[in-house]
């Protein structure tokens, strides 16, 4: 049970149960869907970008605790951030969930997902929302897949 607690930390269980920014943004400037073909999980992300800054961000969809919590934590992390920082944050987050690196300080709460690195089959769950945000900012119209 103890090693499972490393994956399913309280913060993750909390964000899974009560996802933040879980809604549709009616006046979003960017939107994209992400699907994980392996499990059929689907997520939609909405962004409201003004002057290169993410003024608001929200998501909807159904997924496992890891993908829901990751999406929820991501929206908190990205709100108010310049679009230019997204790629850098995604890269740092990706490193945290796939390698044994030290968690960089700038990641804040996102680092609770570091436990995913011990579960390679779950990395795609943790990164699904990020792939969708990247697609939204690149203005993809087709759903983006993790595969």
């Amino acid at each position: 049970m103890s090693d499972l607690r490393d994956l399913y930390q309280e913060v993750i269980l909390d964000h899974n149960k009560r996802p933040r920014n879980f809604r549709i943004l009616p006046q979003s400037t960017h939107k994209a869907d992400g699907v994980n073909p392996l499990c059929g999980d689907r997520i939609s992300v909405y962004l409201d970008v003004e002057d290169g800054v993410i003024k608001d961000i929200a998501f909807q969809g159904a997924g496992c605790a890891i993908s829901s919590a990751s999406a929820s934590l991501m929206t908190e992390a990205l709100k108010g951030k310049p679009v230019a920082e997204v790629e850098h944050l995604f890269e740092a987050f990706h490193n945290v969930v796939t390698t044994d690196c030290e968690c960089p300080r700038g990641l804040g709460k996102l680092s609770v997902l570091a436990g995913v690195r011990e579960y390679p089959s779950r990395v795609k769950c943790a990164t699904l929302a990020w792939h969708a945000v990247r697609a939204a900012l690149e203005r993809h119209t087709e759903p983006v897949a993790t595969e």
Partner: protein
Amino acid sequence: MNAMSALPALSTLPPTRSADLDLVRIRAEFPILRQKIHGKPLVYLDNAASVQKPRAVIDAIGECYGGYYANIHRGVHLLSERSTVAYEGAREKARAFLNAASVQEIIFTRNTTESINLVASSFGGSVVKAGDQIVITGMEHHSNIVPWQLLCERTGAVLKVAPFTDAGELILEEYERLLDSGRVKLAAFVHLSNALGTINPVKPMIDLAHARGIPVLVDGAQSVPHLAVDVQALDCDFYAFSSHKIYGPSGVGVLYGKQALLEAMPPYQGGGDMIRLVTFEKTEYADLPNKFEAGTPSIAEVIGLGAALDWLTAIGLDAVAAHEHELLEYATARLQEIPGLNIMGTARDKAALAAFTLQGVHPHDIGTILDREGVAIRAGHHCAQPVMQRYGVPATARASFAVYNTRDEVDALVKSLWKVKELFE
């Protein structure tokens, strides 16, 4: 004391004994089952995805490669002759297993999927025209949906889907109504649903189609390891299954087809082994079954399948079915003790698996947590996304049973599900 009272009730049997099976001996034949996963004894309940292999099968493959392997059907040397005899011997075992009339009706493919694609491409490609219809059911695996969709795209035919009830039972009247359009060229349906466990009433379904002159393909990927199949009694036109789900190696599938149909069908793939005479002007094709086996097949694996069929036949499918039925009943009762657990697929005629959801917990999280307890299950859409859509869930967790599973293992499953609840509450 009368004779009846001397027999222990089912529920008081020792957990590693079944009514007719010596599970200790059977389990000892599976080397893989002896290991620990994350420090816990392996409880392998992902048998509907692929089943583990007994020593007899592993040895048969080793003996082929280590003792007499060579290419088949062409060498004049002894090893080629021995390999050919073993390979064709496996064909006879598959014939006997399905009770087909002739070995010419047994085609070796890569898997069930390729068997179905062969029929869709060769039979469908030559018979199905624009405006024709193919009838399937709503509980098909993707492998019995997509080949027909591809055929429909190529020909302009239309795919019709017979619905099923909330319990997961086919609505026979709806199926019959679809057959009545006068334009149906083939009915293709699953014998045992991998997502629900439903055993379809294949005999009446075949008879209904035949009454209208419609040929039938049965997807037997899930059924053959669990219940005896007699293709002559069923009178189906095609029957497809995979070796890896019936204790044999991966990479081999079987397609049974009625001889007259197979003879009339054009080849599926061209190449070596499927020809009688090749010139640049014209090629004469080989007779059945070689016409449909282009190129060097999975020789050792086909021989391994033969060993698997021998092994399963020696245990006896009736004893297997009785044991698995007892496990399913026990598992169903134990799973229903868990609050918030909902079993999907409650057909009266059901086999060998329990698909379920647990309120507030996604199946993938269940799968990960159970794995840490040594319990291997499948979580996801089970390559049956339309079934998930039918019930409005993105995925389910599925525990599926094989002959070597025990009541102890059901207990381990249930115990670890309580841990899932503990963690998520």
